[in-house]
């Protein structure tokens, strides 16, 4: 095809001009409002990003061994992957847990499992991120209880709870309760955190899953930031002052394959958030206005075919995240189109970050691409397009009415179908899949069998024999009464957890008060 006829677009379909050469206005320096160029003046010269590999599989015992291995390899933070029953608030012995225990992450059914998960890991020294949403307050309570047992004061705890329920309705779909009671639980954790855990991020407002569900870069950005505003609105309605909780709101974005589009997305994210915090919410604290984010390379970009190519994809995506000023980063393993990563594959993924940090020279100066004609234009266009979406959602009455109307879901499904059609027509090339195919050698995979389910179920029966069941019942009743009222539920969840009430029992108590959510499927 002649270049004159060919359309050049980003992976999200944004048209790219033949040349960018318009003068670029001078930008505020890194560390200066609105932080387009980064939230720190010295950026990675002062401190490298945290290398935080998302990890968890099978039983808490096996996952604990993996954590010790990763820390020994030089990883600087932990990130817990829970299995699907845990994410959905079911114990391992529940009928819906059939075949799912330990498959997508570690199974954690009670405080006992959380104790095993962090055995020998000093919670006062290691920062821990937990990917848990609908039952986030329960898992967080277990974590806080383990810290108590280790004698670590909560004020020393540093880490992140994902706890972003809105993106579950939009994309990831691991929801239990309807939106409003779910938002109340999230607000309870934000309020509790502001009082008791000043260094812990009670929420990580996530675009990652929105992007994995097939959104464009602009949709990822807009829906995530608008979700963030929804959490701010709820906390303000609770009576909190914006600068008392906003400094601990954190974000999580995808690092997808279109290199410049991703860097533009991170830069635009910081600018939109800084302006929104100052102008929409009247924040006066720099810490509230600085958007901090974790990035993970794009799982959906990994191919089953020729899996070693995934190492290269991941390296490029990680580079975009670093050039975009991420505070922490997960790099995917080459085998993740097949299974949870094996030890060898996860080591290569971690080494990829270490090569970027110590060999590439990129961390030597903040925002090294700032001032590029192309990048600055793309950043401005991304900001405008995201603001258009944010205004549309404002006009719908906020994110909850938008979700109930199926708006973000339908936008994402349409983008995802459009992309797949382009792949199908060969307009988008995926190396090794729709071009440059060749046979690939088999790779070794991590196998997780059904034994985790049996192991976890046996532990649950033993626990229920051993614990004070009257105390459990009393604590669950108290939690239900609190849930029916307007009190903060966290202290009641903590009491239930400390008496070894299981995740399933606590979530069932909340289900009985809040009901459950069924979505209308939007094709």
């Amino acid at each position: 095809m002649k270049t004159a006829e060919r359309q050049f677009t980003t992976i999200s379909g944004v048209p790219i001009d033949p040349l960018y050469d318009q003068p670029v206005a001078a930008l505020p320096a890194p560390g200066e409002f609105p932080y387009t160029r980064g939230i720190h003046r010295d950026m990675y010269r002062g401190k490298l990003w945290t290398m935080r590999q998302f990890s968890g599989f099978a039983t808490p015992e096996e996952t604990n061994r993996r954590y010790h291995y990763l820390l020994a390899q030089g990883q600087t933070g932990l990130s817990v992957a829970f299995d699907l029953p845990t994410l959905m608030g079911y114990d391992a012995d529940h009928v819906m847990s059939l075949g799912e225990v330990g498959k997508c992450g570690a199974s954690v059914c009670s405080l006992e499992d959380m104790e095993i998960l962090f055995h020998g890991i000093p919670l006062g020294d290691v920062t821990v991120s937990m990917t848990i949403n609908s039952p986030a307050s329960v898992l967080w309570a277990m974590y806080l209880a383990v810290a108590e047992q280790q004698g670590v004061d909560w004020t020393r705890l540093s880490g992140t709870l994902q706890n972003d329920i809105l993106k579950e309705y939009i994309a990831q779909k691991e929801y239990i309760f309807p939106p409003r009671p779910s938002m109340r639980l999230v607000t309870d954790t934000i309020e509790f955190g502001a009082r008791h855990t000043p260094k812990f991020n009670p929420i990580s407002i996530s675009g990652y899953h929105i992007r994995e569900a097939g959104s464009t870069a602009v949709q990822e950005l807009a829906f995530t930031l608008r979700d963030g505003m929804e959490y701010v609105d709820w906390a303000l309605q609770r009576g909190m002052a914006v600068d008392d909780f906003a400094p601990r709101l954190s974000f999580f974005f995808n690092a997808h394959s279109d290199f410049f589009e991703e860097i533009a997305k991170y830069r635009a994210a910081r600018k939109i958030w800084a302006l929104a915090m100052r102008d929409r919410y009247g924040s006066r604290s720099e810490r509230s206005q600085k958007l901090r984010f974790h990035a993970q390379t794009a799982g959906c970009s990994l191919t089953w075919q020729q899996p070693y190519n995934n190492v290269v994809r991941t390296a490029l995506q990680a580079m975009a995240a670093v050039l975009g000023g991420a505070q922490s980063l997960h790099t995917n393993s080459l085998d993740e189109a097949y299974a949870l990563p094996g030890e060898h594959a996860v080591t290569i993924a971690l080494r990829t970050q270490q090569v970027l940090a110590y060999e590439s020279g990129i961390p030597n100066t903040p925002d090294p691409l700032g001032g590029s004609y192309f990048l600055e234009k793309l950043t401005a266009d991304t900001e405008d397009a995201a603001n258009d979406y944010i205004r549309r959602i404002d006009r719908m009455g906020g994110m909850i009415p938008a979700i109930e109307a199926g708006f973000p879901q339908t936008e994402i499904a349409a983008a995802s179908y459009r992309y797949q059609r382009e792949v199908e027509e060969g307009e988008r090339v995926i190396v090794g899949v729709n071009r440059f195919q060749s046979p690939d050698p088999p790779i070794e995979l991590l196998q997780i069998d059904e034994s985790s389910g049996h192991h976890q179920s046996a532990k649950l029966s033993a626990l229920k024999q051993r614990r004070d069941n009257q105390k459990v019942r009393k604590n669950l009743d108290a939690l239900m009464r609190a849930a029916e009222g307007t009190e903060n539920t966290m202290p009641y969840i903590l009491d239930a957890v400390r008496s070894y009430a299981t995740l399933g029992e606590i979530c069932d108590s909340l289900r009985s008060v809040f009901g459950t959510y069924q979505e209308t499927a939007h094709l």
Partner: protein
Amino acid sequence: MAHPIRVLVAKPGLDGHDRGAKVIARALRDAGMEVIYTGLRQTPEMIVNAALQEDVQVIGLSILSGAHNAIVPRVLELLREKDMMDVKVIVGGIVPDEDAAALKKEGVAAVFQPGASLDAIVTFIRGAVPESNVQS
């Protein structure tokens, strides 16, 4: 005039990853088939009941969580119990080669792994549903 092929696209288990199921549902619809999408978190019993109610010729199961070895055989068992073995079961998602071979042995008509083209899936379904089964 021949009636269109009817397909039930189902998401069993706890897995919430519905991107693939939705793309396939739209692609089959664009190819002229009638598609019923179950939505999330269906048990094998719910899926087979829906297949019966909706009188489909094909059930497409989308599973990305690794639970296929527990869930798919149960769907096949229920189809046998209800004398619905003429309904073709196809599986899409993250299914390793060994598991795919085992599932086919148990009666699954086809397994589509990551990277499978929409066209291949449409073509397979058209070939697998004999004309005589399409009521006119």
